[in-house]
């Protein structure tokens, strides 16, 4: 899953009938530390997120497992509003090989 920040809403009158009644949001995807901003995705919101919220995004066919999205033609869904992300290991340390037991 990815983290992202809700940056906008999307309205479409003409759309797939299985999307009728869903709430579509524009989400800026980010790294888990909320630093590096990546691209934008349009995602179905299932947890009533609002603009500015940091959210948890599920993508691919798993998005259809979100509440009420069975058989809907979607590949991204918001399934949580993030309170906090705690990083225990800075990315820079990851370039060093871990200590291995022999």
């Amino acid at each position, binding site marked *: 899953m990815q983290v992202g920040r809700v940056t906008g809403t999307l309205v479409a009158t003409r759309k797939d009938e299985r999307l009728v009644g869903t709430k579509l949001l524009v989400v800026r995807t980010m*790294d*888990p530390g909320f630093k590096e901003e990546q691209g934008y995705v349009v995602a179905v919101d299932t*947890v009533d997120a609002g603009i500015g919220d940091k959210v948890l995004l599920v993508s691919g066919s798993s998005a259809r497992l*979100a509440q009420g999205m069975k058989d809907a033609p979607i590949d991204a869904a918001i399934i949580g509003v993030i*309170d*906090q992300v705690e990083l225990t*290991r800075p990315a820079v340390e*990851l370039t060093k090989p871990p200590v*291995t037991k022999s």
Partner: protein
Amino acid sequence: MQLGIVCGSLVASRKDDRLEGITLLVIQPIQPDGKATGKALIATDSMGAGPGERVFWVKSKEASNPFAPLEVPTDATIIGIVDLVNVEA
């Protein structure tokens, strides 16, 4: 499946009901030698992994299978904790 290292955790109180009680962890995909490769991501944990542990994880819709019969909306799940990786040549 891919190798990864657990590098953090995520808290969300408002979430899909089926994520209730499931740990969400930040993982960085790694190569067998421990070097980071690709972007860090959030994964559900089915194994009780902790920070700094090397794990292997499954992506895509199959990530939901460890929680069956519950259909947990996840696209990445930790399914094992790595004791040893041996790569020859």
